[in-house]
């Protein structure tokens, strides 16, 4: 069964891109109602489809409110009760799929995105849109962000 067809059958998946990005070895997915996915469980589901595909990582673009909780920066995800711990970018989901097969090196901006975000976190919650790899344990690596 094609990977795309298998993913489309999963409860909660709204759509997937028709083809993967050949340069970065990635594909887009949208969840119904903007739901939050677990990378591990999604990985298991993709393995379950049984066509030899493997989830290397999962990046998300999430709207919410950045604030401090117990001194640590967190993202309170909009329209939900979910709270994600914000951490520095470790490894990009995008790879150089045509040459090295290794994760793309982060740009300088991407490397210091978490640090730059911290300097802008105030006492009150601020509206933000953050993009970065989603990790188990409710962690979001900050690759890019946009304050609203």
């Amino acid at each position: 069964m094609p990977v795309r067809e298998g993913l489309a059958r999963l409860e909660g998946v709204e759509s997937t891109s028709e083809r993967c990005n050949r340069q970065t070895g990635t594909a887009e997915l949208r969840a119904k109602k903007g739901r939050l996915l677990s990378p591990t469980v999604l990985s298991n589901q993709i393995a379950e489809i049984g066509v030899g595909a493997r989830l290397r990582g999962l990046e998300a673009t999430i709207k919410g409110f950045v604030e401090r909780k117990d001194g640590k920066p967190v993202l309170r995800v909009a329209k939900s009760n979910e709270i994600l711990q914000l951490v520095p970018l470790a490894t990009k989901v995008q790879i150089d799929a045509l040459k090295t097969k290794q994760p793309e090196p982060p740009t300088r901006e991407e490397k210091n995105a978490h640090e730059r975000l911290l300097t802008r976190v105030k006492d009150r919650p601020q509206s933000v849109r953050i993009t970065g790899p989603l990790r188990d344990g409710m962690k979001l690596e900050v690759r890019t962000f946009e304050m609203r």
Partner: protein
Amino acid sequence: MKTPIMAILIGFVVFAASAEVLSYTMGIDVNCPSGLTE
């Protein structure tokens, strides 16, 4: 997919919450460019 019913059951676990995740980018190792369609 081995069993659609199993996938649906697992799916409820995965997609338990509603939220405002605008999009996902999956890093996926699959035989590109046949990619997701084959």
